[in-house]
């Protein structure tokens, strides 16, 4: 526990009244029962600690059912549970819940019964937020489902849940009763007032409008950020368009939190410094590495013969952490061969594209940032100076992106814009002049563009930080760079395309198209959800082909 909490706790301690009884729930927390009722508070160092069982039996078991339910819920929601969470405290709270709670009849899933309830999964997004899926059946669809955490916290999930048709449930009940088109299925993201640490012991209750009340035991809570993320994305994909009501009401909250957790769970493990990087570099070149390490050598050769790199700090971040040893061996060889100094940031766990960049940027010092993919190979030396020169020559540039080429000299990047098919709601990222020849005249004009790719992007560190940098909430890439550019645009900067600097971008598809479908659709939806209005404004002023109507 942090020291600050320990120092504060004595001040909050209230004097013990004589008629009060207490029992220790964990080293930090005790249950006190007195005239004012039951409460959790910081543990006192006293000898008055009685047994919890006796306390519950003597003081609380006699209350009426409704009051006992309230007491359990109030205790579980106590602020001190959030301040001193522990498995021991959770275990004690579970014990309290089991002694005091009013048991409802167990729900039998039977087509002849008026009420049916099933919880198929509870996913732990973090200790306080969860994702639940299941179905419920009653006579009129007005029934209320409440989940009870092992610690006793109560959340009514039907209030906010996304409801959908379950053909299997409809079929099961259709023969006997009810309106067969009702939405039996429910899925919800919900949050608890205090952390829940136990995986077993969740209960769900159903109360129908005509007074039937039943309960079931829920399956054990599932945790593990990556697996949960896949499950939630799968559910989004199975319920109509990925960017629908479920995403807006539930998926977005869950996935945003999960993305944050994935980055939180990734820490810097070590920073290996090769040679002596410049002490006050003008620009930090930050290169996240994921899986493909074979490009590094080709890129590094170009850097080593480019005088610009004397004033540049070169920072690699390894996002595919399992390749740590392989990378270290490779980088030692490259350093021996070329003598160009650089740093390698090793992480404890993968952080994703935005997260890896964030670690790399935090480990770098220069006032300007050049974000670079490892599969971008300069066409000729001098590109860093040319980009920095242009950045300085123009007032108020946000992100600056150069011309990027495929191996056959066709354009990979000449600025990004946003495209929305007629009648479509969502904007997608599009590349100006993609596939046309590098000498195509209209692609050889420097101009402000709605966005540029982060495959190679120059931005002032201050401006980058002012807008919060690359966002973490996208799942496996796609829209981080355009959101960064939109944030910069919103802060009043202009993003520019610079064709006189040319690099090759050997863009490949590192994921199978099919596994990427749902994340891509989700990302596209989230991007439009957040930035739709801003994009509409930007696109009203932008023409892909200047001089024509589009």
């Amino acid at each position, binding site marked *: 526990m942090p020291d600050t909490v320990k120092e504060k706790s004595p001040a909050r301690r209230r004097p013990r009244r004589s008629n009060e009884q207490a029992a220790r729930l964990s080293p930090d927390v005790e249950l006190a029962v007195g005239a004012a009722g039951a409460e959790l508070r910081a543990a006192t160092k006293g000898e008055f600690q009685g047994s919890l069982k006796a306390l519950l039996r003597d003081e609380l078991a006699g209350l009426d059912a409704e009051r006992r339910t309230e007491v359990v819920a109030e205790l579980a929601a106590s602020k001190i549970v959030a301040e001193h969470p522990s498995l021991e405290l959770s275990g004690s709270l579970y014990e309290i819940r089991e002694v005091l709670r009013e048991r409802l009849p167990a729900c039998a899933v039977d087509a002849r019964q008026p009420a049916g309830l099933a919880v198929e999964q509870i996913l732990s997004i973090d200790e306080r937020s969860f994702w639940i899926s299941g179905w419920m059946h009653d006579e009129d669809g007005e029934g209320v489902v409440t989940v009870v955490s092992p610690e006793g916290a109560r959340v009514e999930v039907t209030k906010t849940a996304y409801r959908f048709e379950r053909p299997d449930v409809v079929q099961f009940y259709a023969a006997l009763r009810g309106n067969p088109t009702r939405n039996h299925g429910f899925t919800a993201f919900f949050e608890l007032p205090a952390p829940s640490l136990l995986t077993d012991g969740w209960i769900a209750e159903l109360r129908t409008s005509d007074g039937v009340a039943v309960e079931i035991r829920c399956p054990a809570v599932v945790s593990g950020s990556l697996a949960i993320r896949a499950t939630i994305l799968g559910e989004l994909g199975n319920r109509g368009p990925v960017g629908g009501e479920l995403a807006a009401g539930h998926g977005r909250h869950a996935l945003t939190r999960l993305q944050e957790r994935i980055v939180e769970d990734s820490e810097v493990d070590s920073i290996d410094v090769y040679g002596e990087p410049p002490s006050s570099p003008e620009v930090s070149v930050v290169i996240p590495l994921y899986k493909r390490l074979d490009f590094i050598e080709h890129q590094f050769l170009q850097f080593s013969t480019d005088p610009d790199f004397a004033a540049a700090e070169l920072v690699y971040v390894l996002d595919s952490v399992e390749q740590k040893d392989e990378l270290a061996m490779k980088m030692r060889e490259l350093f021996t061969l070329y003598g160009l100094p650089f740093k390698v940031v090793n992480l404890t766990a993968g952080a994703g594209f935005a997260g890896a960049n964030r670690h790399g940027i935090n480990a770098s010092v220069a006032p300007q940032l050049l974000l670079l993919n490892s599969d971008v190979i300069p066409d000729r030396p001098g590109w860093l100076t040319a980009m920095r020169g242009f950045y300085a020559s123009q007032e108020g540039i946000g992100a600056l992106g150069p011309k990027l080429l495929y191996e056959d000299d066709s354009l990979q990047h000449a600025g990004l814009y946003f495209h929305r098919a007629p009648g479509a709601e969502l904007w997608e990222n599009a590349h100006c002049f993609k596939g046309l*020849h590098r000498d195509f005249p209209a692609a050889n004009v420097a101009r402000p563009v709605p966005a540029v790719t982060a495959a190679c992007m120059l931005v002032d560190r201050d401006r980058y930080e002012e807008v919060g940098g690359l966002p973490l909430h996208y799942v496996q890439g796609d829209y981080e760079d355009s959101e960064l550019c939109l944030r910069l645009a919103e802060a009043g900067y202009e993003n520019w395309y610079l064709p006189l600097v040319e690099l090759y971008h050997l863009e490949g598809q590192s994921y199978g198209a099919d596994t990427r479908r749902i994340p891509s659709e989700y990302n596209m939806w989230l991007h439009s959800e957040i930035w739709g209005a801003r994009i509409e404004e930007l696109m009203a002023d932008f023409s892909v082909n200047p001089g024509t109507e589009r």
Partner: protein
Amino acid sequence: MSDLRVLYVAHNHPTLHPGGAEAYSLELYEAMRSQPGVEPVLLARIGSNVARRRVAHPGTPFSTVNDDPNQYFVFTETDHFDFFTLTSRDKNLYSRHLTDFLLAQQPDVVHLQHTHFIGVDLLSQIRRVLPDAAIVYTLHEFLPICNHHGQMVRTFADELCSEASPRRCNECFPEISPQSFFLRERFVKGHFANVDRFLAPSAQLMDKYLDWGIGSERIEVEEYGRLSPTRRAGDPAQVKSPANIGFFGQLSHFKGAEVMMEAMAMVDPDVDAHLWLNGANLELQTQEFQEEFARLQEGLRGRVTFRGPYEHSELPKLMEDLHWALIPSIWWENSPLVIQEAFFHRRPIICSDIGGMAEKVRDGVDGLHFRGGDPVSLARTIERATTNPRLWRSLRDGIRDPYPMDAHVSRLLDLYGETIEQRKGVAVSA
């Protein structure tokens, strides 16, 4: 005045497939490029059936061909092409990618050499995106009319067909309803309505499109123009016995492969005649055809030599030893490029007496006709030709130079100009 921007769309590129039509497309593009005031762009289709490449770059079907900034490939999935309706199932190809390309390139004229594997929908999309652009379409075979590989040959007994209709087409394809043929025709014609000018390299081909319903005001005959080869093949070493006959092109049923093999088997054993096969794509033919061809070839070891595929640039050398070129096709053909190539090198032609062959080769003047599809007639013609050096000389002297590229280019530029003017009229009156 800014340059005239002409976009050429072709279904293939000579770097992928060394065919005559492909060579012509590139030659035309290059000839236009050397014209002052003209900026041509060539867009050639690429796909898994012509190149080993299976994917395009992510996010775009376009890629460059070489250092020339005005030559492009457009990648389309072979599987996405609907051969019956002549459209791509990937509508995004038109609504998104080709639209972006047209808007970026802003051509004044789009001259289509073909829409195969791209789809006729492109025609409507050009009109929507570029209302003022002139659309010119060169017809190469009868694909828009005929579902039988665009050959206008009935599926039974190789009978030549001169008229398509839902009823007759259903006779050829009993498993496809007349209603489907009706819709096919309406669909293709619906997109063809956007074409300002059709070009037919032969009169017989134009006639069939006139019969099909293309208005005479929208179509004209314009032969393929060709560049003169860098080297003209000399006369064969000996002409006393003009025995060497050359076949050039695909060895397929419609090209008359069996007819010529059967004919060679019937040629009088005392006559010195030898057939040299310069061709490719035997492996693409049906198993049945390949077996039949092998069987025919087996009995003709001393008479027929298979020389395999060739590059277009090898033609002068391949022509060198030959006296005759043979075109035994059993379909109408359009204007076979082999005719022009043989005439460049002063080789008289023995050909079927039908369609584009009968039109372009004058019987008894610069070649000899035989009854199309009839091996006996071909055998007798070969006997007559190979034993008659005087006839050979007189036919050779009757050969005229083929239609030169210069004249072709100048006619096309006039036509582009006229069509652009016409469109302005349309735009004003609309």
